[in-house]
């Protein structure tokens, strides 16, 4: 089975969030980047599917769009065990809306004709939760979202989908298909030293975003960003940990009355 995994490089969750002078995004110079966690689970699911099948023609290809810096995240995925990668070079992702980005990914995916396309259910930066579903729509493929587990069957796939409040369902669907992966279905692997070494020699095909799909006028525009305003007045208990703890216990005893 040929599996394509769409991954995204996102600001590390511990990065400082400082709004840039244009007020449209955060200061990128402050940021460290990481692999979007739900995409890490998508990659893990793909690698396990390939290992389980044992087929010699099994292949896991990672696909990512973004500027040069995305290369480090691609190498990380290759070090974990992906066979090769496609990097859609783009400096203008911020000016493409979800449909614009999905068009890029769909166009690159078309050239590979995979049996299965996986991606995380959402990104940790924009949190749109739409890219995988739109890619399926653009490619005319069936899809399912919030998937925790994938089983290959004679006719296609059987997947476990998470519903709200602790409910699940299984879905059968034919291949090729697009699935968005929920975190927690598997235990993530770390790259081994051997993996890191081998990643250096693996193929990373570079495609130019502008050649793939010319940037169109976005349908939805992010005008500005701002820090959230507090809705509730939080009483901050200061001092040393011991002083703050004493103040809190005082509140819990005499105001909240739970002690």
């Amino acid at each position, binding site marked *: 089975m040929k599996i394509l995994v769409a991954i995204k490089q996102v*600001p590390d969750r511990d990065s400082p*969030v400082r*709004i840039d002078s244009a007020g449209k995004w*955060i200061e990128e110079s402050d940021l460290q980047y990481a692999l979007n966690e739900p995409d890490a689970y998508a990659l893990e699911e793909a690698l396990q599917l390939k290992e389980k099948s044992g087929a010699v023609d099994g292949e896991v290809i990672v696909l990512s769009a973004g500027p040069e810096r995305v290369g480090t995240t691609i190498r990380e995925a290759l070090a974990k065990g992906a066979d090769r990668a496609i990097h859609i070079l783009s400096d203008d992702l911020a000016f493409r809306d*979800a*449909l614009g980005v999905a068009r890029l990914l769909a166009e690159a995916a078309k050239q590979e004709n995979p049996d299965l396309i996986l991606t995380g259910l959402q990104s940790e930066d924009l*949190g*749109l*939760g*739409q890219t995988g*579903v*739109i890619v*399926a*729509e*653009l490619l005319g493929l069936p899809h*399912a*979202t*919030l998937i925790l587990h994938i089983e290959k069957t004679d006719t296609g796939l059987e997947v476990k989908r998470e*519903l*709200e*409040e*602790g*409910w699940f*369902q*299984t*879905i*059968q669907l*034919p291949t090729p298909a697009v699935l968005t992966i*929920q*975190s*927690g279905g598997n235990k993530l692997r770390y790259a081994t030293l051997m993996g890191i070494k081998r990643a250096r020699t693996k193929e990373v095909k570079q495609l130019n975003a502008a050649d793939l799909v010319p940037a169109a*006028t*976005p*349908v*939805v*525009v*992010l*005008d500005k*960003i*701002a*820090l*959230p305003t*507090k*809705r*509730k007045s*939080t*009483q*901050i*208990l200061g001092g040393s*940990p*011991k002083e703050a*703890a*004493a103040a*809190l*216990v005082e*509140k*819990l005893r005499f105001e*909240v009355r*739970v*002690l």
Partner: protein
Amino acid sequence: MSGVLVVIEQRAGKIARINWEALAAARLLAAPTSITAAVLGVQTESAAAEIAARAPGKVIRVEHPLLAQYTADGFILALQQLIQSESPAYVVLPHTYQVRDYAPALAARFVQVLISDVTAITEGPVFTRQLMQGRLNGSYRHSGNGPCFVSVQAGAFPAETAPAAALAEIGTYTPTLDPAQIRTRPSEPFRAAAQAVDLGSAQLIVAVGRGIRNQDNLPVVQELATALGAELAASRPICDAGWLPMERQVGSSGQTVAPKLYIAAGISGAIQHLVGMKGSQCIVAINKDPDAPIFEVADYGIVGDLMEVVPAITEAVKAAKQ
């Protein structure tokens, strides 16, 4: 193109609160008489009557045997036809797992982009949604020529209540669907196992998040829970990593809790977690990041490393109980 179409989600005839919030959000985009509410399925009479009592302009029962069970293909095709026939300027949906499954593709079919998980609608209209796991708000504008698709976050808008006066008229719409167009076969929903831990009835909860950093540090929060006589809970990443069982997870994919006291230690407060605990009577947040979104819902906050703060609280609780 005019008016608003609100797509109401019913499950076995039951309509969750988030749908009334979507109806209220629609009021910010059009006058009540220009709001149409649609409900999809089979045997939707009673659901439609319940919706009509909340007085949108009109209620449409979108019925077809192939809509008895949710599939993305069935819902997208049915709604595509309904939207073409009604031609609304806005389509407002509740941001549920089901809507996340089909609405992005439905919007793309109209060459539009869903503005997902919206928390506020202001003059313009400008749509606010969260970025960077709730650490930032983004203001979005629709600039396409087609209908504008919006999904609203649970709890962000006050739910529309039933006025004493008039009921909306109820109509039906039958989409053209063919079994061959439905490519996925879903099973009936099931629960993994009987939940051994009922966090929902716990009076005191100590919850732990990524800030714990390492599984070996868990005893630190367990000791606080024991000292308080509280249940131990966690945010999703802790359960994903297998450090605590899934049944201890609080949030949209776990349990919803409303204890007297909820202590969130090292939990940043992504919306997926907040929806599961913001109804708690008293929320205490301990986090090293003073800008963490958890402080927005907390009554008391302590900014610091949980590895130092939590043991200090445990000691103080023990001393107070002596």
